[in-house]
Structures are given as structure tokens and as C-alpha cells.
């Protein structure tokens, strides 16, 4: 079981472990409870990564204090996770846009082109980048959902 540590180190390690586990639980709760895929992508990609980072920091502190030398494997795992999680979240978002996974309003997200929303909502049409007016507003019944 756990060895003997100074009280302050033990308190800091406990706080880091509990905080990390709470963040990971929050991220998983978001994954389970939020409404569409684009919202669900937020929980695991931010909160869970931070939570696992907290747990790994607590573990690194624990083994560093107990053995008197800096413990490398946790730092490696943390660096690897913090590098790879944004990449996989980006790939998942790209795949969802490619598959036209419906968002919370029922419309496929890839169908919302630039400018179509604001002109359809009644905002004045802004001129395009080259001075010409922007594309005419789509009739409101074009948008599915």
C-alpha cells in the first residue's frame, strides 16, 4: 500500500488526484448528457484531458517525493496525451462535418455556408470581399429542419 510521505506532500497529492478525477468525471458526464455530437466533442477533448493531466501530476509528485528523483514516465504520458488529444478531436470534428452528422437544430452542419444564416435571418446583406454584394439570401424554406 501507500508508503509514508510528508503531510504536505500527501495533502497536495490527494488534492491533485481528487481534482483530476472530478474533472474527468465532468468530461464523461458531458459526453453522456449533452445533446448533439458537436457539443459532446467538448467534454472529452478539454475536461477529461485536464483531469487525466491532474491525476498524472499527482502521481508524478507522489513518486518524485517518495523516491527522491524526478519520475519521468508520467511526464511522458502527460506530454503525449496533451499532444494527441487535440489532433484526434480535430479529426473527429472533420469526420463529423464530412458525414454531415446533424446538430441540435436538425440541420447538417456542413449545409450552413458562410453568410447564409445572417441573410436568411433578416440582417442586411454585406458586400463581399471584392466589393460586389454578397450572394442573394436563400429562401427560408431551403434550410432543412
Amino acid at each position, binding site marked *: *500500500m*501507500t*508508503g509514508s*510521505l510528508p503531510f504536505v506532500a*500527501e*495533502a497536495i*497529492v*490527494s*488534492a491533485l*488526484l*481528487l481534482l*483530476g*478525477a*472530478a474533472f*474527468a*468525471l465532468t*468530461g*464523461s*458526464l458531458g*459526453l*453522456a448528457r449533452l445533446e448533439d*455530437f458537436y457539443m*459532446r*466533442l467538448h*467534454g*472529452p477533448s478539454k475536461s*477529461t*484531458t485536464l*483531469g*487525466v493531466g491532474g*491525476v*498524472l501530476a*499527482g*502521481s508524478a509528485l*507522489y*513518486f518524485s517525493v*517518495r523516491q527522491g528523483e524526478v*519520475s519521468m*514516465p*508520467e511526464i*511522458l*504520458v502527460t506530454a*503525449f*496525451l496533451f499532444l*494527441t*488529444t487535440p*489532433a*484526434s478531436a480535430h*479529426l*473527429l470534428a*472533420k*469526420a*463529423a462535418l*464530412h*458525414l454531415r*452528422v446533424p446538430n441540435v437544430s436538425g440541420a447538417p452542419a456542413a449545409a450552413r455556408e458562410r453568410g447564409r444564416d445572417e441573410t436568411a435571418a433578416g440582417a442586411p446583406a454585406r458586400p463581399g470581399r471584392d466589393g460586389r454584394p454578397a450572394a442573394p439570401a436563400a429562401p427560408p424554406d431551403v434550410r432543412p429542419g
Partner: protein
Amino acid sequence: MLSLAILAAIAMMLAALALNLWRLVRGPSVLDRVLALDTMYVNAIALLVLLGVQRGSRLYFESALLIAMVGFVSTVALCKFVLRGNIIE
């Protein structure tokens, strides 16, 4: 104090894994399942690290590193398969 904190953290990670498993079974689209699997990898890493602290053993970190690598590569492969239809073109 530390062993109690570790037990509470392990309980929270198990609850998180159960929520991920629910999303993995339920998920309406393929990408929800891929995302749930990716989150399960990350939570399994945290669970392994907590077990390593509880037992005072360094052996768990090797498996945590392996799971991190395999999880990332499998997520990328699944996304690539969904996007392009095959993995290695």
C-alpha cells in the same frame, strides 16, 4: 488520507467509464462511438495511474503509455476509415 483520496478517485473514474460505456452502446452515430472509445482510453490511463499510486508500483506506467499510443493510433485509424473508406491508401 491518501488511500481514502485514491479510493474516491477510483470510484469517480469508474463512474466516468460507466458513462462512457453508456454512450458507446447508445451513440446515435458512428462518431459518437469513436469518441466514447477515445474517452474510455483516456479514462483507462487515469485508472491505471491511480492503481499504480495505490500499489506503489511503477509497472503500471508502461501499460499506461502503451494504452495512450494505441488509443491515439486507433482513433486516427477509425476517423480515417470514416473519412476516406480505407486506412492506408
